[in-house]
């Protein structure tokens, strides 16, 4: 069922990144950011919920959002590697957000013309959210890249740590034969233009990655995801069949 699989890939991306960003709540560099980051996390979790619900419907086995989010293990998760990377410092968190949003914004723009009504509905809302995430994360990338010696060093390190995971965003995954979802590979020029524009102001350069890392769409993740899911799913799994 390629549509089901493709929806899971999308939903997993959103729930994993939303979870990661939510880990910051109460620990941000300044109070204003303690409000900004949950806004982003809530956008992502909200989109994930709609996508899981829809995936469950497409699958037709009676699974709902929580069955899909809480009862699949790391080998069954289909998110890309970028979103599961640890938060690291604020530079790394903001760069990861920028990389993801700069991809999803043109993705949802393209999906707004989908023949699938539910996908059009998600796209209409998510495209605005992603545009804001690009602005917010992008402005921080600019400030940290341009700010002080230390912040520039940390920003460059974040690029070094994360850029090799960005290629996977453009892999077709299970959506290769799904005509209601956008062609991921076609979004590369738009993504590169956004990144180049922001990197230009931040004094960063987009590296060439000879050996990009991929595998998430096949359930071959880094080691951090299992820990993240262990935490995320612990309460739910400790009480099988319970409602919350």
């Amino acid at each position: 069922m390629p549509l089901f699989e493709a929806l899971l890939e999308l939903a997993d991306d959103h729930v994993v990144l939303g979870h990661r960003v939510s880990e910051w709540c109460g620990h941000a560099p300044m109070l204003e950011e303690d409000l900004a980051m949950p806004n982003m996390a809530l956008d992502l979790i909200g989109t994930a919920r709609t996508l899981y619900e829809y995936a469950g419907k497409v699958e037709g086995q009676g699974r709902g959002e929580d069955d899909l989010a809480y009862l699949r293990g790391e080998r069954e998760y289909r998110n890309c590697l970028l979103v599961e990377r640890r938060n690291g410092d604020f530079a790394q968190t903001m760069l990861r957000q920028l990389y993801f949003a700069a991809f999803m914004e043109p993705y949802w723009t393209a999906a707004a013309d989908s023949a699938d009504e539910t996908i059009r509905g998600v796209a209409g809302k998510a495209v605005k959210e992603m545009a804001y995430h690009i602005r917010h994360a992008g402005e921080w990338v600019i400030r940290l890249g341009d700010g002080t010696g230390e912040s520039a060093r940390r920003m460059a390190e974040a690029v070094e740590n994360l850029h090799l995971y960005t290629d996977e965003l453009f892999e077709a995954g299970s959506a290769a034969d799904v005509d209601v979802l956008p062609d991921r590979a076609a979004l590369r020029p738009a993504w590169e233009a956004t990144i180049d524009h922001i990197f230009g102001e931040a004094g960063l350069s987009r590296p060439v990655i000879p050996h990009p890392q991929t595998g998430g769409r096949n359930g071959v993740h880094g080691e951090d995801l299992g820990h993240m899911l262990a935490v995320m799913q612990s309460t739910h799994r400790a009480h099988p069949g319970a409602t919350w």
Partner: protein
Amino acid sequence: MYSQGLIGADGSTGETPEFLEAFQKRIDAEEKIEPNDAMPEGYRRTLIRQIGQHAHSEIVGMLPEGNWITRAPSLRRKAALLAKVQDEGGHGLYLYAAAETLGVSREEMTEELHSGKAKYSSIFNYPTLTWADIGAIGWLVDGAAIMNQIPLCRCSFGPYARAMIRVCKEESFHQRQGYEIMMELAGGTPEQKEMAQDALNRWWWPSIMMFGPHDADSQHSDQSMAWKIKRFSNDELRQKFIDATVPQAEFIGLKMPDPDLTWNEEKGGYDHGPIDWDEFWRVVKGHGPMARDRIRDRRKAWEDGAWVREAALAHAEKRRARKIAAE
């Protein structure tokens, strides 16, 4: 989320009797005092202290609940909890801003929190051990907070009152969110119900301690009442809270952990058993089980974020310089 009865403010003041009388007349006429108005030093000091404690409570209060954001048992609960903890951060922000109108900076207040000089609500020095604690906090701690905060919307100091109006409006979902969690648990599996009862057992007494010492032992209440910073006494608010909460526990089949709790027909309210004030003062004075961890976490967030704030300021400086150069 919460303001504790003010702990340890010095309301003494050295102005002339004429000045104090004129000020009191404005207060008695229900006039609001605004930041640039002349005010007794004791009034300013009391407010800085109270609003600061209130703001710190909101910020520290993000931690015990934040402890469960990553483990919330459903996506719906996760979103609601995240939005709630975010609100607490917002409330801290509004309150710091209200205190800043009195000439103290957020950085100075933050410094006082981190050094242990400033107090915050003792309730947040208890640990959140199960998911039911999130329900209990929303239901009891936010419930107690609302009792306290609604009268603060009419506080004589304009910026504080305005901040509280915004806080109360936003907070209306917090208590319902918590009670809904408890209701679901109490009606769930035996393990879930046990979890709910255990959380109630641990949070009930700290919640009723949130209203502060008994009126007879509350040193600073009289002056605060006269200045209309405070509108009801600690015991009055505590009674209101208990009377409202006991039937809510009964409704979902949970037992209050107070064997002496009985309905008193004559006063039309519940009588409760003795409160352990030794524990209260121990926790207020920074010896609660999580006190060190809370301050450690706040300090770490602040220190880890220093390079980010410095970078933002450095960039702003460069932007200004570039703009001037371009003109």
